[in-house]
Structures are given as C-alpha cells and as structure tokens.
C-alpha cells in the first residue's frame, strides 16, 4: 500500500513540474495559435542560468529568481523578435522554433559539455518524511505545494479577473475583442511572458527531481509539453493540469509496477485520447 501511495505522490510532484512547463504552451497555443516549440529551451536555459548563479553566489533563492526571469526574457526575445511577425503562419513558427532548438541545444553543448548539471537543494528541504519503507523528501512536497498554489492562482486569474476574461474571449473571437477597443496584443505578450517565466520555474525546480539538466533536456521536455497539450487539451489551466497529472502519475505507477511499460505509457495515453477525444480531455469541441 505504501508503495502505491509513494508512487502516486512521486507522480504528482513530477506532474506539477510538467504542469508549470506546459501551462505556458497550452495558454499561448489557445490564445495566439502559436505552438512555441522553443518552450523547452526556456526550461533548460533557466535551469542552467539558475544553477550557475546559485553556484556563484550560493543563494538558492537568487538562483530561482534569475532562472524565472531569464526564461521570461528569452521568451520575450523569441516572441517579439521572431514569432511576432509570423502570426497566422503556423508552419513558419514551427520552423523558426526548430531553428532555435538546434541552435540553443548546440550552444549549450558547446558551453557546458555533455555532463549533467545538478541542482543542490537547500538544506531546509533535504529532510524527508517516511511513507512505509520509502522516504518522501520535503523538496517534492514543496514542489507539490508550489504547483498547487500557482495552479490555484492561474485558475482564479483565468476565471475571475478581467485579464482572464479577455484571454478567454480572445481565444473565442479575437476580432470582437479588438473591436471593443482592447489591446489584445499586449495581453498576448503578457501571457507569453508569464508562460515563459513558469517554464523557467519548472526548469529550475524540476532539475531537482529529474536528475540534472543536460543539453538534450530542452528537446525532451518540449516533447512532454506537447504530450500534455494533446492529452489535456489546449487553452486552459485545467487542461494543462489534467494532462500533466495523468501523464506523470501513470508514468510513475508504470515505473513502480511494470517498468518496461513506463516508456510507452505516455504514448498509449495519447493514442487513447486521440481516438476517443481528439481535442483532449478538457479541450473544447
């Protein structure tokens, strides 16, 4: 029983990292019809930047702040510099993002080499709670708490604030929003920036539980974000959360009970969702 419980909790903590990673992709996809495949690069760059600052200064919290904002700023540069000119040209956006994937992956390999960088978790989080024969670290619990709090805040912002209403309206009828004199573009850019920051947060915190960051991390996590979008459906906080938790928990259960299946769990889930509900579990239409 404790095995089951532990693998569920482990899965949820991983699911929170996936949620923070994918929320940005999902919202931006729903809002601007932009699939930001370079999102995984932000995750990776943030992890590298945060760890570098942490090792130089010795402060976990400063590293966290740097990680979050470096991802946000690089995201803004990619959006304002390149993707902005390519709205409604989805193929071109994807190709530009591919270009960034190749370039950033190769530059990171050049700068840091193939050896993984590992995050040193602050002393306060290194303790753990026993669950049966297992030890659940405070760090994983902290990630779950951070994920749930941010999820609550995002959901509240989506459903209860004016910006959230504009975003939801912008997904349905952007022309109507412009007609009402609202600068939807500014909201779009804001959403892109927030999504990028969340990805940075996921990158920094996530390296603590995914076993370090290497130059291929960006490529592999953007793939996870896509899987979350396919499973959960795009354009909403609850969709990203559903997709992330389902993928992470099933993956964790498979790892515990039947490891050979773990690699394929995500694909099986995706195939099922595509056949039953092509727009994702929470997706509209």
């Amino acid at each position, binding site marked *: 029983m404790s095995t089951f419980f532990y693998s569920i909790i482990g899965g949820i903590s991983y699911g929170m990292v996936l949620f923070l990673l994918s929320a940005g992709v999902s919202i931006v996809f729903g809002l601007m019809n932009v699939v930001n495949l370079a999102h995984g690069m932000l995750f990776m760059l943030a992890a590298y930047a945060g760890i570098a600052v942490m090792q130089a200064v010795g402060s976990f919290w400063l590293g966290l702040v740097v990680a979050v904002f470096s991802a946000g700023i690089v995201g803004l540069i990619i959006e304002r510099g390149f993707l902005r000119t390519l709205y409604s040209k*989805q193929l*071109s956006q994807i190709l530009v993002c591919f270009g960034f994937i190749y370039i950033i*992956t*190769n530059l990171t390999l050049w700068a840091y080499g193939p050896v993984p960088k590992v995050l040193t978790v602050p002393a306060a989080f290194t303790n753990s709670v026993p669950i049966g024969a297992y030890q659940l670290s405070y760090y994983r619990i902290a990630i779950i708490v951070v994920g749930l709090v941010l999820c609550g805040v995002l959901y509240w912002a989506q459903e209860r604030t004016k910006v959230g209403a504009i975003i939801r309206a912008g997904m349905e009828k952007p022309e109507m929003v412009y007609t009402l004199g609202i600068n939807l573009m500014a909201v779009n850019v804001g959403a892109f920036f927030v999504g990028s920051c969340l990805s940075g947060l996921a990158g920094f915190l996530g390296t603590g539980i995914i076993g370090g960051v290497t130059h291929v991390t960006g490529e592999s996590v953007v793939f996870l974000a*896509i899987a979350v979008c*396919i499973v959960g459906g795009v354009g909403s906080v609850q969709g990203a959360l559903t997709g992330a938790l389902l993928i992470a928990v099933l993956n964790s259960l498979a790892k515990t009970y039947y490891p050979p299946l773990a690699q394929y769990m995500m694909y099986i889930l995706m195939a099922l969702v595509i056949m039953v509900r092509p727009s994702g579990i929470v997706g509209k239409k």
Partner: protein
Amino acid sequence: MSIARPTSGSAPAGPAPRPHLGRRLAYFSPAAVIVVFLLIAPTFLAPDLVHLLTKIVIFALFAMSLDLVFGYSGLWSFGHAGLFAAAAYSVAILVSKVGVTSFWVVAPIGVGVSVITAALFGVFGLRSREIYFMLITFAFGELISVAARTSYKYTGGSNGIWDVPFPNLGFGPAFSKVSYYYFALIVVAIAAVLLYLITKSPFGHSLMGIRDNEVRAKTLGYNTWLRRFLAFVLSGFFAGVAGVLYVFLNRGISPDQAGISNSGLVIMMVIIGGVGTLWGGAIGSAVIIFLNYMISLYTPSRWPLFLGALFIAAVFFAKGGVYPRFVSLWKRVCGYDVRGGRSVERATTDSPPEA
C-alpha cells in the same frame, strides 16, 4: 494580372503558346546536365564523394516522398523519419540478427513495415488537421525512436545495428561503392517517376483540391479522409524504399535516425527546395547534404548551429524555395512567360503549386 497577359493567371488558365523548340531545349538543358552528371559522376569522383552522392540520391527520394504529404496534401508530417527508420530497422534486424541475406526477401518486408507504420500514423494522425496532425506525427516519430532505443535485444539500443553489408541480389558480382550508387540511382529514378505520375494523376490533383478547400472537395463527393490516408500510405511506401536503400549504404542504423532531428532535416530539404514542387525535395537534399559535408569538414560538432540558422533564415528569406525561384528565373532567361514566387506558407495552404 494584367489583361494583356491572360495566360499568366493561376493554375487552370488557358494553354500558353508553345515556345520555340530552341527555347524549350534551352529550358530543359539544366535537367539534362544534372542527369548526365548523375550518370558519369562516379567515374571521376573520389570514393567518399560517391558515398555522399549516393546519400544525396537516397535522401532526394525521402524528401520527395515527404513532399507528397507535406506539399501536395497539406499534411505537416513531422514523423517521417519514423517511417524511414521503420523500414531501415526491419532490414537491419533481418540481416544482422535473423540472418536473412536475400535482398528480395528483406527489401519487401522493410517497405511493408514502413507502409504498415504509415497506415497506423494515418489512422491516428488524420483524426485532426494541420498543427494537431504535426504534433501527433511528431509524437509517433519519437515513439519509434524510443522503441528502437529501449528494445536492446533486437535493435542494439542507443548504439543501433552496425553490421549490415551491401545487399545480396542473388546474381551478378557483389556490390562496390560505385555499383551500389548506380543501383540506388536506378531505384530512386523509378520511384521518382512514379511519384511524378502520382502527382500529375487525377488522384494527385484531388489531393491538392482537398488541401486547398476540404469542404468543397467533400461537397463534390470526394472521400477526403480516404484520399489523405492513401497519400500518407503511398508516401510511407516511398519513404520505406529510401530507408531500405539507406540502411545498406550506411551499413546500419541508429535510433537518432528515427527521431525528430532526422525528420527536421528532411522537412528542411523540402522547404529549401520548394514545398509542393516534388523536384524541389531533390534539390534540397543536394543542398543540405552537401552543406553538411562541407561544414563538417571544418567544424563537425557545430553543424546543428548552421542548420538552426538555416531554418530561421529559410522562413524569412526562402519564399517558396530554391526550385521554383530557379525555374521562374530560368524561364525568363529562356524567354518564357513568367509567374511570381510565393512564400512557404502560401505554397502549403492557399494555392496550387506550379512546377
């Protein structure tokens, strides 16, 4: 469009007056030069350049097979390397692990596996369109790469399989680099002619019609799902042929060849060459593989950097690709009636391609 030049409109305009024979000969001369070069090149090229040229020829077929779905059907397949690798792995496993050596047994099985894989991609992917189709094929391509990486027993894991000799045809002398080049050239030429005939057939035109306006095609009574599915499976067939040829040339295969980096490479070939032009894929293959070779001579580990820059540059500057641009320039040189170039986006979504 000015009234003075009524023939320069979009696709189904009236027949243009036929240019003089001399002009037509001049117009087709570059194609003739390329054909002659391909036929005589091994007599003066160094062995590693013959290997490079064989690779270009094989990837030309791979890129053209992708263009059948990417350009002609408007299906953005980002998992085509999965089909290519499915065929290559089937052959490699049969030759190296099972010990079947006859080319006439392994090649049809390899292509068959690729066709079946394409059918599975189609069944899942064609539930949706455009961007979702892209995401789903991306995922399934990665799935094949993951499967290859984790089934150590059959696929050799991350290392792949590296002991596939040149094929055994059962007659004639054993293959050398040069004779394998000619073998690949003949197979690719036949496949390219078939692809050309497909794109010019009523079926090929219906694909473009469905791409440009699916609702209209449906209203006219076409089974749009089935036609797209068939296009994808046909494309899988040709990608499989390329995969089989490649595994013998490369002497083996590794999981990287199944993943997104290889799919991205072929997409780049199609885009550089010209989306929806068929021959553009072949030109793109030559450009990309030759660039890869030249850059790798100087800085082998920095190639992805150049490739990435190429991706971004292609989006902003390659408007329609090398092939259509060269064709319109060359037509002007030869005194033909000329049409304007188009962007990548329009070439795939809005308007029919012009060869």
